[in-house]
């Protein structure tokens, strides 16, 4: 439908949250802002992100954005997180502009996670 508020990619990632959950012994970031609650967990091996998981309380765009992030950053270098931009997700998932603030919460969480990863690897 042309007036569907959710893009096919949002629907796909919202319905298939394969990265929902927690990781044992991971570095984790918690954030609670703008009506969004997030937790991102990551394990790192040889400087690369081995696994990513998320927990989220938020609208479908936030949940889909978390899943999209996990799908795209597993296997990437830890420092790549510093280049994460909310605008990339906004564009890829066709997130409406009024939800920018919520996606920026994810950006904050990803950057915090990047800083934590940069400061030391997971045990």
């Amino acid at each position, binding site marked *: 439908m042309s007036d569907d508020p959710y893009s096919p990619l949002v629907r796909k990632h919202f319905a298939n949250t394969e990265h*929902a959950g927690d990781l044992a012994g991971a570095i984790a970031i*918690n954030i*609670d802002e703008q009506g969004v*609650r997030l937790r991102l967990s990551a394990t790192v091996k040889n400087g690369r992100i081995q696994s990513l998981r998320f*927990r*989220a309380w*938020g*609208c*479908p765009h936030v949940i889909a954005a978390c899943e999209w992030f996990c799908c795209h950053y597993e296997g990437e270098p830890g420092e790549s997180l510093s280049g994460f931009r909310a605008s990339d997700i906004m564009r890829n998932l066709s997130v409406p502009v009024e939800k920018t603030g919520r996606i920026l919460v994810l950006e904050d969480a990803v950057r915090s996670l990047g800083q934590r990863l940069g400061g030391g690897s997971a045990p």
Partner: protein
Amino acid sequence: MAKDFIYLDYAASTPVDPRVTERMQECRDSGFANPSSNHVAGRLSRANIARAAEQLAALLNVDPATLIWTSGATESDNLGIAGAARFRSHRGKHLVTLLTEHKAVTDVFRMLEKQGFEVTWLKPADDGRLDPAMLAAALRKDTQLASIMYVNNETGVMQDIEAIGSICREHDVLFHVDAAQAVGKIAIDLQALPVDLLSLTAHKFYGPKGIGALYIADRPGCHVEPILFGGGQQQRIRPGTLPADLIAGLGLAAEIAQSRIDADLDHLNALRRRLWAGIKDIEGVLVNGDIESGFPGILNVSVVDVEGESLLLELEPICVATGSACNSKSQEPSYVLRALGRSDLLAQSAIRFSMGRPTTEHEVELAARRYREAVARLRDLATAAAT
């Protein structure tokens, strides 16, 4: 017709009864003439309208001459409230209404406030009902109109129209009722009820969209000034060429509703009981309104620790509403539920299930199961997310 969804949004709109569709087509084929024309075709069109007026009048137990055709409940509310307030403005400019009215009512009062009227906004109790004594206390010597809805479109809460209307009569205050969710669904006898103005729309009771009516009681001091101008139709109260086909559809929908109101109510009561039984033991689920005294076609529930928009998407293909359909694109929590004391988060998680004639027990069982699964999944997704 094959469906790939389960429709539980009958408070937003109902499908047109096939008999109504057939009746409207008859009018389009042979009664299409302008009903204001004096030739034989025009007279046929007028006859179709007169028959519909009798059918609707029978449903409400009123004189057909007291009915004014409009485009729907929004226009009826505008005409009834603004028209009556202006007609009586030489006597006073104080008006009374309820915070939980439909936007078609509240926005008219907001507009009247800007035009110099003073409005008292009453707050209902947490169960959504208005204490008639609160209304009585709000009335003043210069009060000219009170408007209280019959059945709330979001919660199904029913107000004590008889008690409220009696208080208005005692104080010579006109009483308008937005009955968009009530007409054709519950028995309404306007000979017995002290109501002066009543708004209705056909598409809430299996008639077509785009047609409604305003009842104006034939009693001293009860009249409305027009809000539209341009012709002499309907005693100049609501000018414009009448859509005879839509009116005929409304009339037949009213006749059908009258013949089966009790059966419909029994059906809806059974469906709501089954739906509630299927979800009531979910931890943190709350009924918005009063399940005992509310209209049985609506069940509005909130649930703690679940985000409303995600819940709505997770429920697909169950068609339900988060707030009133007119407001569903808004990100704002429902003002109706906030007025009932719900927090922003609880209001935002609210889902309105509304059942209708075609709804089956199988459908409400599927909806209940889907709701349980959706709540469980979203809670699992959020479990242990930041405190």
